[in-house]
């Protein structure tokens, strides 16, 4: 079966302005959402307690709400269905200080009258741990980006590195905007998903850049635009196919993986779509805007090659005993 077959390069670069405007407007909306509405931090980062209960029958949610609301110490607590109408989740900002006085135990006692239920999960994070986790998360993001910048600079050129990191920031920011828009609760797993998007979207971009690097060497046409057009078109098939397989795999995770990893798989789905878009339409134009020069790169490559050849020559001479 063949879907994408290379016939001639698509003229993408001539339309790069349009994609640029689209990306920038989506970015602005995402940033506005992040700053304006802010993240809906879950207990991992905000601290608090989460209790998941499963009832034998349909969960009497209004009764549970009534009981929780009547106790002043649970002010601001929320009660929601979780996955099915048999299960509910109670979230409160309160966290247990001592091992003996556990919020989970207290809620269990409090709700005894509401029916037969099983406590399936109690997560409690103290406020101090929450802020530590948040700092660590931010640190992880920054470190990952720095590591990637260094690696791509060494393997390609600094402009490739900057372009790929800009594409990454683009993807992660838009994914974050979607998280805010869809009120996904931000916990550690969302952080993991965002870091995965980092790796994944970069993966896509690198494949395209690798082809551009190859194109610079092999394609006679000296303009970067046409080299990019041809390279992107040639990798289009792979980019789309891989994205599709990964998208469908994550979709099964989203649909069948259970409520607990829904936020995680949702974030990944967004990331895959945005990451694919950005590696086709965003990353390469940035290379162009950064003033990447084909002839300079060729010269540098030629110089590198020359130096290696000279070294070989020297070594050969040395081995032959002429030096």
């Amino acid at each position: 079966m063949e879907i994408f077959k290379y016939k001639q390069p698509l003229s993408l670069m001539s339309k790069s302005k349009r994609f640029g405007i689209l990306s920038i407007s989506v970015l602005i909306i995402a940033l506005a959402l992040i700053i304006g509405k802010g993240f809906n931090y879950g207990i991992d980062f905000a601290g608090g307690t989460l209790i998941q209960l499963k009832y034998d029958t349909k969960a009497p949610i209004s009764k549970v709400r009534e009981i929780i609301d009547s106790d002043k110490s649970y002010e601001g607590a929320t009660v929601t269905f979780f996955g099915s109408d048999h299960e509910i989740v109670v979230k409160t900002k309160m966290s247990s200080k001592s091992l003996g006085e556990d919020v989970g135990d207290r809620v269990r006692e409090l709700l005894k009258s509401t029916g037969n239920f099983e406590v399936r999960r109690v997560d409690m994070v103290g406020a101090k741990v929450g802020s530590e986790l948040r700092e660590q998360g931010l640190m992880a993001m920054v470190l990952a980006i720095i590591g990637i910048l260094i690696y791509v600079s060494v393997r390609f050129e600094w402009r490739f590195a900057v372009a790929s990191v800009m594409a990454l920031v683009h993807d992660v920011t838009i994914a974050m905007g979607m998280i805010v828009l869809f009120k996904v609760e931000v916990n550690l797993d969302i952080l993991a998903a965002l870091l995965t998007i980092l790796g994944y979207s970069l993966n896509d971009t690198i494949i395209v850049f690798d082809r551009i690097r190859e194109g610079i060497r092999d394609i006679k046409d000296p303009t970067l635009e046409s080299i990019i057009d041809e390279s992107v078109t040639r990798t289009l098939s792979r980019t789309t196919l891989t994205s599709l397989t990964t998208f469908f795999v994550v979709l099964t995770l989203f649909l069948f993986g259970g409520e607990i990893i829904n936020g995680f798989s949702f974030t990944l789905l967004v990331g895959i779509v945005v990451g694919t878009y950005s590696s086709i339409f965003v990353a390469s134009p940035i290379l162009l805007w950064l003033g990447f020069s084909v002839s300079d790169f060729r010269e540098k490559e030629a110089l590198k090659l020359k130096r290696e050849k000279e070294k070989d020559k020297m070594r050969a001479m040395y081995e032959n005993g002429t030096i």
Partner: protein
Amino acid sequence: MKRLNFRVILFAFALIFGVVFSIPSLTQSEDGKKITLGLDLQGGLHMLLGIKSEVAIESRIKSIAGTVKYVFDDEDIMFGDISIVDNEKVTFDIIDKDDIKQAKELIKKELTGVRLNENGLNFSIDLTDEEIVRTKQNAIKQAVDTIRNRLNEFGLAEPTVAKQGEDKILVEVPGIKTQEDEQRIRELIARAAHLQLMAVDEDRIARVDTMSANEAKSFGDVILHDVNSPEKYLLRAIPVIEGSMLTDAKVGFDKNNQPQINFTLNGQGAKMFGEFTGKSVGKRMAVVLDNKVYSAPNINEIIGGGRVQITGRFELSEAHDLAIALRSGALVAPVYVMEKRSVGPSLGADSIESSSIALAMGFILVVFFMMVYYGMAGVIANVALIGNLFLILAIMSLFGATLTLPGMAGIVLTVGMAVDANVIINERIRELLYMGKSVTKSIEDGYSNAFTAIWDANVTTLIAATVLYAYGTGAIKGFALTMSIGILASMLTAIVGTHGIYQLLLPNIDKKKLGFWFGIKAEEKK
């Protein structure tokens, strides 16, 4: 080209290795190394505990006061006004100037890590800075050991207790069935189990109901409550005996068949206890546990042998847990919860089920797609994918790694990403075939053209995964781990393995059947 090439042999070895070492995990057999399920999949309790290490300093100061009092009494040195100031130093006066030299020598002999400051006849003892650091570190180490002992004695399967960071303790207890059990385990861990035998201040106890805490302090006393009733006791603040002198604690029964705890003191404790009871006949002695008075019996005679009981209307399970706590030693400093995650066994089972379904569906989807789109080339990629999955399981089994729910997600994601390498390779091969290159040339060049792209892409993903592993906690580490192993394994299976299979099959590849082999129309070939 030889049909049996090193690549396919390497792949075959990897496949055999993968299957052999993943069998114990897949069948959950008793023998062999296997993957442990994370607490989120098998159910259990995960806690991060903080420690109030300043309390360790306080109790150290208290025991210094006790020692000073004991040795001075023993050597007949007259002293007065021994007291503890701000929980950080012990102050006292020496009454007879001639005793100073001997007193200083005794302190030097009996106490380490302390500074003695003198001002005429007034003396004070505090801890050196190094001693404070050491005491705090010991408190954490001791808490880790104590909690581990308690959990082991409770008879739980493979609890993990480890120091995390500078001042935190990680506790993981798998296999807890109910919330009630969990509560009991938490209480067992949290129990300070600080046992003290204290003298009742018989001269002033009559006034205890009107006395303030400060007033009691001015007499060198403390006011403590009875464990079961609001009754108050006035006790000498410096205990006669402390829990550290205890050697054994067992559940026994009193004459009314009520559970009680019998404990035995060590040599020094028994000697001190004997001397004290000898001097205090007719007075009362309080058995104090975690600052509650359990009983305050009259001392009728010298008690030798160091055998003491705690009675206090216990439930049997309570007495059992308390004996464990006493036996495994007191927590020098109390612990508190910073983070707690508990998952019931039924939720864990549900998570395994749903993520397995997702994995199976995702796998079938990808395998089916690859086969339809690429023909035999897709089948070869699928063989590599299966090899990859077995390798992930085998490597995780060998390391005894933990599989968490995000770890399952990592494997699902790997299924999507591992075929990526083959998609890249197959696209390259197709390109070359379109250009009219021979099958052999197309395959060889396809692999070499695709290699740098796959390599660079995988390394960058590995960088992200490594950072995630270093900064992630618990379950997230599992995700980073499975993803990293998946990527590394895919380098072997998807690049080396499939290449080897092509070389093995090369003589059979019919140029006229490119549709069957590579999923492209033969007539497209120029």
